[in-house]
């Protein structure tokens, strides 16, 4: 008799629990959906469409603007590569500004994906003696050269290896991306990256509404939240549509080159074939797809 009672109350409880779960989820379905969202790489196209649609609505509510949120996958037959002419860069930081605007980086607290290092010609590429806070009236400054550093899009990315949540990975076109919905903010990747290319949102990011870029990609420049890591994605929202990254388009001296490493006729391949090329911290075997060259 007693046992029967137990079983009965258990059955009652479990039905009630199911009911209350449903009721609970009913009151804020979207938030729970977002919380229970699977890993982006395992989602079906329909699930991705739904997520992207919900995000567009969320951003519209927050910023009062129509957003185009894309989840465009990698093109087939493409491996993106980048080349930067250090004999030509004058350190004007136009790329930094363009990148901040294109990729909706937080203005306060300040986050910048590109850092332009000023180096002394006498010392050569010497990171220890480089300066990112140079503030000259006009650049280039005599006796100096400039060395912009951003995500090197390694073929062997250590940030991906250490991520305990599998929230960052290398796409088929070689771009290392972050799923901001899955990032748990542990910053292991920042410790693992030898280039200082990853940045953490210590506070809720702020972007002036009039400057926000509404053409966004799920894995790229969509507005981030506090507590997640972000980085350069070669402007995934642009390059997957065939456009150049915005740092390439803005560079007034044409020091930045971009293209498909698998295409022997691309600009980057021409540079690899004909110019003197170096990669940053080659000894670490990260195998960057970001090359520095002397034009």
């Amino acid at each position: 008799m007693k046992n029967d009672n137990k079983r009965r109350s258990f059955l009652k409880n479990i039905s009630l629990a199911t009911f209350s779960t449903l009721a609970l989820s009913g009151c804020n379905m979207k938030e729970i959906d977002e919380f229970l969202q699977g890993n982006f790489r395992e989602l079906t196209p329909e699930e991705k469409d739904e997520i992207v649609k919900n995000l567009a609505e969320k951003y519209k509510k927050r910023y009062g603007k129509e957003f185009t949120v894309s989840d465009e996958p990698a093109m087939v037959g493409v491996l993106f590569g980048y080349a930067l002419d250090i004999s030509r860069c004058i350190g004007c930081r136009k790329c930094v500004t363009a990148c901040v605007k294109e990729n909706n980086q937080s203005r306060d607290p300040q986050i910048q994906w590109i850092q332009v290092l000023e180096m002394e010609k006498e010392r050569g590429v010497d990171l220890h003696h480089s300066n990112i806070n140079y503030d000259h009236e006009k650049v280039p400054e005599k006796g100096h050269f400039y060395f912009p550093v951003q995500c090197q899009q390694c073929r062997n990315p250590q940030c991906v290896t250490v991520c305990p949540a599998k929230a960052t990975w290398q796409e088929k076109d070689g771009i290392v991306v972050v799923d901001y919905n899955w990032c748990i903010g542990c910053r292991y990747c920042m410790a693992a990256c030898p280039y200082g290319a990853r940045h953490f949102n210590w506070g809720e990011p702020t972007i002036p509404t009039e400057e926000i870029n509404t053409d966004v990609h799920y894995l790229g420049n969509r507005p981030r939240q506090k507590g997640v890591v972000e980085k350069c994605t070669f402007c995934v929202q642009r390059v997957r549509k065939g456009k150049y990254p915005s740092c390439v388009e803005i560079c007034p001296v044409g020091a930045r080159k971009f293209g498909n490493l698998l295409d022997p006729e691309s600009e980057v391949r021409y540079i690899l074939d004909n110019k003197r090329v170096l990669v940053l911290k080659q000894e670490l075997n990260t195998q960057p797809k970001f090359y520095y060259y002397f034009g």
Partner: protein
Amino acid sequence: MKINEIFYFMKNRLINNISLTSLLLTLFFIFLISCTSKDMDVKKVDSHEGTEDIVEVKKVSTIDEYAVDPPPFTDGIFPCNDCHGYQDPNPVRRDLVEWHDDISFKHDSENRWCLDCHDIKQRDSLRLANGKLLDFKESYKLCGQCHGEKYRDWKVGVHGKRTGEWNGKKHYLLCVSCHNPHTPKFKKLKPDPAPMKQEDIKLVKKSENIESNEK
């Protein structure tokens, strides 16, 4: 009477029990769902996504002509024949004082002067070393006479700025869009502001819903 009381007591306890257990169960379910999905990912996701399965290579579409910006003429200076058409040409090398005295010429000025690039008769044209006339829109060919390596790089899109599509139509700039042909050295620029120093970045309370965060 007594039985009634017992019933009442039991009922109360049962309700309490139910609400507590249901809450616990709900939490447990959420935990279970999130856990299982993460476990699955660890097994399925392959972090070394290679490029082995790529078959066709996406190529740059062939470019037949260079889409360039128009030559950057000073206002009102072109066509040259508006003035030169009525003047007898003077082929003697000299310092210009009356007209074009604003041109500072620092482009191998020891050995060259105006008529090495501008044609003496057809003022609206440029002139190659072999005497062939050239439109101002094709001035890159003139530059390429001496700067062959740069010209080669420019043609393939490696020297100079390109905009447009990495796998399609590109927009080129003429050499003279960036280099003044008379003083070709690239002009110095004012840099954009330096980044904030890390120690100056402060996290402040922005609104009531966002807690202030001390690092």
